[in-house]
């Protein structure tokens, strides 16, 4: 325990006080700088090559200037008003942003290993690097799930650490692979390039990353390691589905159909998956709750009870996940409506995907009402979290597989 504390405090120093605040403002400055470039830059916003606009010298200049101004502002303001250093937003947000930056750097490094232009062909995409990283991610996520499950039965600190480390590794591998796929989509043809959120295979990877990182953030803040087995088992199930998708040729990078050629795709889709991922974690917490509840009722004295979070904690984790997922899902649905208004001529068409999104929203809305206003707790809500996730899975997968409608590009072909 003491070793962990020491580790946390060394790294923790980076994420606190002035340093965190400066970085936080630098990131804000960076994104403002890049937005400013899109709006006022010499080349404007180029839908087909925004990635390279960001990574070009011009992007570095705009973004870098923004970041420097941000950091400078933070340093000055925090000296003038030391109270700012007490805020929680910067220290809570900065690790996420650092992680994203690290993924970008890893992807840039990995991009150096891509085959030369003459060996890249659209018809045979097997020699691209992202596929290898995705396979690594698959293996690591499954390994992590196994380690978390082993931890339930043999609660050794070492096993727990391996489980956590591999889950983090998986998240970074997934993020790197997705960014690399973004780059790879441009390698075939500059016209074809697009953000890697355009088909089921790509969004699955995004879903794994988000689910795992929502869970890991709980683990970091609270004693929640016993819950990892349930969440990572869900992720592993998804990984197997992803491997199957790959095996039936759904993993190829394909050009975007005209309906998807919009900046809304880059916002709407990831935001939706923040919702889905958080609901998956709530489902994991619900299953863990039901398991522990059952064991306690049977008067079990299993060692597992020592590592599993208490019933009250699990109840809270499920609620907290829904509290993350629900606003994100609401926002995602609204963004989807905004996109629909721009592409299809109406913000709401009762398309199966829209309707199912509404159903998911109503189910979790009812969950929140039952909990907050009716004071429901425990078993019933744990079942609700599990059932709610099943509805979510149907909304995400079932609609694409069984129902037709305007979201047909998410379809298996």
């Amino acid at each position, binding site marked *: 325990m003491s070793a962990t504390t020491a580790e946390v405090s060394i790294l923790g120093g980076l994420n606190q006080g002035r340093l965190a605040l400066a970085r936080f403002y630098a990131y804000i400055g960076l994104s403002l700088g890049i937005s400013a470039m899109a709006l006022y830059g010499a080349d404007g916003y180029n839908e087909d090559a925004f990635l390279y606009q960001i990574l070009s010298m011009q992007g570095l200049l705009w973004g870098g200037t923004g970041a420097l101004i941000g950091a400078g502002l933070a340093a000055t303001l925090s000296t003038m008003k030391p*109270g700012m250093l*007490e*805020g929680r937003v910067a220290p809570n947000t900065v690790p996420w942003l650092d992680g994203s930056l690290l993924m970008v750097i890893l992807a840039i490094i990995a991009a150096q290993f891509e085959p030369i232009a003459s060996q890249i062909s*659209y*018809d045979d995409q097997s020699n691209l690097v992202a596929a290898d990283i995705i396979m690594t991610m698959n293996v690591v996520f499954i390994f992590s799930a196994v380690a978390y499950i082993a931890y339930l039965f043999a609660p050794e600190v070492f096993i727990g650490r391996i489980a956590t480390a591999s889950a983090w590794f998986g998240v970074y591998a997934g993020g790197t692979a997705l960014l690399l796929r973004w780059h790879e989509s441009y390698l*075939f*043809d500059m*016209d*074809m390039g697009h953000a890697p959120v355009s088909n089921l295979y790509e969004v699955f990877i995004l879903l794994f990353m988000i689910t795992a990182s929502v869970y890991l953030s709980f683990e970091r*803040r*609270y004693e929640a390691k016993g819950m990892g087995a349930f969440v990572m088992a869900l992720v592993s199930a998804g990984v197997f589905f992803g491997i199957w998708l790959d095996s039936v*040729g759904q993993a190829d990078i*394909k*050009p975007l*159909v*005209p*309906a998807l*050629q*919009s900046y*809304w795709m880059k916002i709407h889709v990831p935001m939706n998956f923040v919702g889905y991922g958080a609901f998956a974690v709530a489902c994991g917490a619900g299953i863990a709750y039901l398991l522990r509840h059952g064991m306690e009722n049977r008067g079990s004295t299993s060692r597992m009870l020592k590592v599993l979070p208490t019933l009250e*904690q699990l109840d*809270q984790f499920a609620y*907290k996940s829904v*509290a*993350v997922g*629900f*606003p994100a899902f*609401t*926002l995602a649905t*609204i963004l989807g*409506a*905004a996109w629909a*208004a*721009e*592409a*299809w*001529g*109406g*913000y*709401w068409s*009762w398309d*199966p995907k829209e*309707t*199912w999104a*509404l*159903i998911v929203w*109503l*189910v979790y*809305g*009812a969950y929140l*009402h*039952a909990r907050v*206003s*009716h004071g429901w707790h425990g078993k019933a809500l744990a079942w609700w979290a599990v059932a709610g996730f099943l509805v979510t899975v149907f909304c995400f997968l079932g*609609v694409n597989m069984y*129902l*037709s*409608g305007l979201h047909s590009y998410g379809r298996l072909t």
Partner: protein
Amino acid sequence: MNSFSDLIKQLWQRLGSMSLAIVLLMVLSLASVIGTVLLQNQQQTDYLQQFGPLWYWLFRSLGLFDMYHTWWFLTLLGFLMLSLTACLWRHVPLMLKEMRSHKGTINDRSLKRMELNQRWRLGDGITIETMQDLLKKRLHGWEFKSTEENGVHFLRADKGRKHKWGYISVHAAILIVLIGGFISVQFGFRGNMSVAEGSMEKTIFFSQGTETAELDMPFQVRCNSFEIDFFSTGAPKEFRSNLTIIDEGKEVLTSDIIVNEPLFYKGVYIYQASFGDGGSDVTFKFYHIDGSQKTRTAATQVYKTLKDEESDISIEVTDFRPYNVENISEKFGEKKFKDIGPSVEYVMRGNGFKPVKVKAYMNPYIDADGNNQGSWMMVSVSGDAKDYEPVALGLDLTNPQEWQLFHAFFTRMSEMQGARNEKANLKAFKLAMQDVFGDERPADFQNMAVRTLQAVQILPKLPWPVIPMLEDYSHVYYTGLQLAKDPGMNIVWAGSAILVIGLCIMFYLPHRKIWLVIRPADGGTHITLAGLTNRNHLAFQQTFNDLFTKLDEEFSHHKNKGSKT
């Protein structure tokens, strides 16, 4: 009269109750499922075919084919609005009062009941102000109120006192969104318009229940051109229409629209929705397969029916495509996309054969290795595009010499007096080649020989009097536009923004209260630190415990100092 108002009051109470809200949410979601499983707004004949007469009439009378606009579904939504209104009506005044009142004192009982509760007993060495300052220093960004009552000092700290606004705004926002939706449906419209290149339209069509309704726009739309761009893979990249708006006979605006980039005029958005053939001119060439070697041409248009007196057939032209990008690779799993040229789709009817649906390609099929496989068509005997089977005609009909060769070969074969072996075939073919080409042989004559033999097998078996092939065309697209006016949209966006902000307040700005109660007692003070939150108990517990540890350190520091003096 009194009982009536009581009844109303009771109903109102019921309407705003949480149980009704949850039941409504669940019923709405279950009802919505129906409309996703049952395809909405399809052709009535399709429904009839799918369900049979009994279920069709039952579903139809329930309005399930346009479910989201039926009276009962709208009533459900209306109930949701009523329930929301009643709920807000009942709770908002209470909440506003609660937010305004900000009592600094707290009685002992409530204090003890709080889940987070810590006590100290200290000596005299520390002043009340110091203690209060210590707490204030730890709670950055909190609101403080200190009160004194009967010698007891209360310091109340609040964070997120506006939390209840989250609740109010979320519920009000949903109401606003629903109102916006109602305005959209009531005062807006949305329909489709097909405009052929070069022509002008004014009317939109939309489905209303089981019927199709139409509406005239206050302007006319002319489609100047429609273009499709392709990726190198053959997938469509962009659909672009160049439109001119004509208002009262004057051209007011000319602009390009593509998917995701609509045009806006007079409150109406014009979207690129689909495209198709706008009635292209097509010329058929009929190849008579009665051995007469006769060919004729006949001109018609897409969507028209051509009646051919001479061969007694009719051809209903259903579609024309200037490009057909197909995967021409024969290896499994390999993709090789290529444009295989224009095609025309038609239904051929006549005496002595069943009507067939045909997709005839203008060009011969050139396979992945560059070999000419002759002219071909897709034929569906059932009339359904799903049942298309390729039919290779053998001959490359774009080359008139092959048609000649075929007949020459037939003539020469009949001269062979019934000898049907390979040798005779070869001889007949050589002679036929001589007849058509003289001494000069075409480059790929071997391939031609194989295909001519193939044609000899196939052509006489076709039940039709002629083979109608596409000879020439002048292509015209129509662009499928969607026109929509939505006066409720901005209300919906405003409601959505309030909704998201409200949710964030509700979930991320919980109302946290902390009391520091200092009560003088014999030779010292009793101090109580208590805390309460309405959301996110885990995080608050941590905050509270941190606070307690810090204060405990400080207090014990003072306690030691106090004991020394």
